């Protein structure tokens, strides 16, 4: 009797395995293959794209790195004229060199020392630029305004 139970149990496992082979692997394949085929290339392309964009970004920031990047300006501002991508929270600074005086009522050099807008007061107040840094920022913004 024990033997019969053991044979039943062994056959049960074999039968289950057989069933899995038929339904799970052989027939399941037809379903899954296209899915795998579709997802793989998509993943691959998106990773390559990502790598490419990252590579492009890196070169841009390495070439132009400098002060706007190291002081974190690009976190909020882009400078389209210099090809510098940046955040969209603050205005694009391409024309800042010429426009700040009219818009904020003081020359950009003064504005960078003591901004009149609430957001920039907070930013610069807590982390003021040294004279050298300010000169570098002004240089870059001048360059941008002339493009």
């Amino acid at each position: 009797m024990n033997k019969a139970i053991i044979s039943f149990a062994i056959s049960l496992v074999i039968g289950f395995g057989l069933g899995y082979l038929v339904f799970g692997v052989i027939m399941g394949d037809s379903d899954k293959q296209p899915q795998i085929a579709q997802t793989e290339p998509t993943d691959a392309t998106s990773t390559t794209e990502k790598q490419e964009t990252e590579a492009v970004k890196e070169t841009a920031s390495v070439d132009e790195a400098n002060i706007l990047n190291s002081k974190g300006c690009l976190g909020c501002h882009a400078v389209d004229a210099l090809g510098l991508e940046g955040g969209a929270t603050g205005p694009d600074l391409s024309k800042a060199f010429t426009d700040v005086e009219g818009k904020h009522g003081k020359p950009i050099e003064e504005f960078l020392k003591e901004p009149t807008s609430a957001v920039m007061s907070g930013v610069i107040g807590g982390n003021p630029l040294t004279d050298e840094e300010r000169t570098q920022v002004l240089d870059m913004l001048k360059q941008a305004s002339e493009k």
Partner: protein
Amino acid sequence: MKKWIPIASGLLAGFVAATISFADFSTSTNNQAASGSTKSDAEKVYVPFGEKDDYYLFASGGHSGQMFIYGVPSMRHIRTVPVFSQDSATGYGFDEHSKKMMGGYTWGDLHHPAFSETKGDYDGKYMFATDVGNSRAAAMDLETFTVKDIINVPNTSGPHCAAFVTENTEYMFLPTRFAVPIGSDYKPLDEYSQQYRGVMSAVTFDQNQEKLNIAYQVALPPWSYDLSDAGKKSSADWAVMTTYNTEEATTNLEINASQADRDFIVLFNWKELEKMVAEGQYDEVTGQKMIFPEKHKGGIYLVPVAKSPHGVDVTPDGKHFIASGKLAPSMTVFSFDKAFEAVKNQDFSGERNGIPILKYESVMEREVNPENALGPLHTQFDDKGMAYTTMFISSEIVKWDPKTGETLDRIPVQYSPGHSVAAEGDTVSPDGKWLIALNKIAKDSYLSVGPSHPESMQLIDINGKMKVIQSSPVNPEPHYAQIIKADKIKTIEVYPKDENNKLATYKQEDAKIVRNGNEVHVYGIAMRSKFIFDAKAKRPDVIEVNQGDKVFIHLTNTDFDEDITHGFAINSYNLNMEVQPGQTNTLEFTADKAGTFPLYCTNFCSALHQEMTGYFLVKPKN
């Protein structure tokens, strides 16, 4: 017990258990496998975040008076552009420019949008639209998606079969739906046939000045003009429009305008009409140059067509025009070449109201009557010249070949399509790919919003067999639409500085308030995150006037930075406008209410948007 029993039963039980666990009982396996090779319907309309649609759809907003802009194929609603009605979201109809354009009206019924064209193709510069409610036409600039000019069209009532533009946007012709006496003067309806007219206006658009003008008008018979299309290529100098109520009935038109077996298509040569005007063959009436066809012959002909026709559409090659009948179950294909021949040979069957009638048989190419298709209205075309006609009554789109009349495909839509629009489907070179059915009824298609159900636009894939793949609810009510390739439209990012604009203030220090008698002019600045109305004042963000003063607020947005739009509203003063980046806009009003009224920026502009406020103080009269 025999040895094989436990083994066999074990195998069987195991197999059954595996079957239950792993076998796929759903019937979708085959479908999935079949669609695995092509995109699913959902994928065809899915535009992932960061990517953009291939086409713009400009859909008329009917009696909302607005234009709805959608992306295709996603069918995402991108923007509502106010045209003939006030719009508090943008302050349209409140600021001076738009208020003046609207001429005292607060609403309109925008029926048919039309793009400006160059050589019969959309050039992406302007969009035109007409107002059936208050007889106007508008021109929208596609650099900014704003209306630049609106013209009131005299002597007509309800330019329904417009706007359609000629091949190089030389003219827009605006014929009337409701016949009225010239100047809309009072005349008894018993004198309808003698005193009423269906006046058609030839409207020009000066692209440099961005101004609409009326070049001349034509006093057509007192019939109802319904739809129209301009010729193309070899028929470019011509245009066609359908007309009903040739019975000249004056009451219960539902019955009385459907008596005669045939109505007409008006066929006219606008080059010839232009020449007649140049030669002085017109009368001066209510300040307009008006051609009376019974006096000044030439250029206008009638083509008999099955009763109460509705749509008339010119094929992309410009060789044929197709009329569809509200009350006739068939489409009729007419030949321009045959019509030109008949005109040349004076092959007329008579005259109506002084206009020669061409013989039906001489101009007709074929009658097309797809089996059980009822209520043909409008026809669009694909890149292979095949026609797609909406069937209002049988709620379907029928694809057919204009060259043979053969029915090629049919698809049901939900329900009662008026117009449909194909990608660039009324140009000389339609794109194919997409067709959108503009359905008048959409019972039970969407979540209920009460007794009035949302209307719908259904996107149909016309690559191969037609298939409805997306459905988009729309505010009441779609009439017509146009689909243009997205890359044809070049929008600007900010308004350029205009140093010649005396109302603009670009520098903080120039912000000032100037009083002249009881007129107060405010030259102010809006920037994130403050208003400056008077740079030298103790409180630069306060405007103080006396009760009864006439106030002008000229506000410039000095954020030359895309997407930083400011709004300006005064509490309880029913006033509101918008200044887009770099733009200067003006509000003009009388400060008739004394009191203290906060003013604020309505359009979210930055983290400190909430702080962008001030006060409008009105000192009471003693």
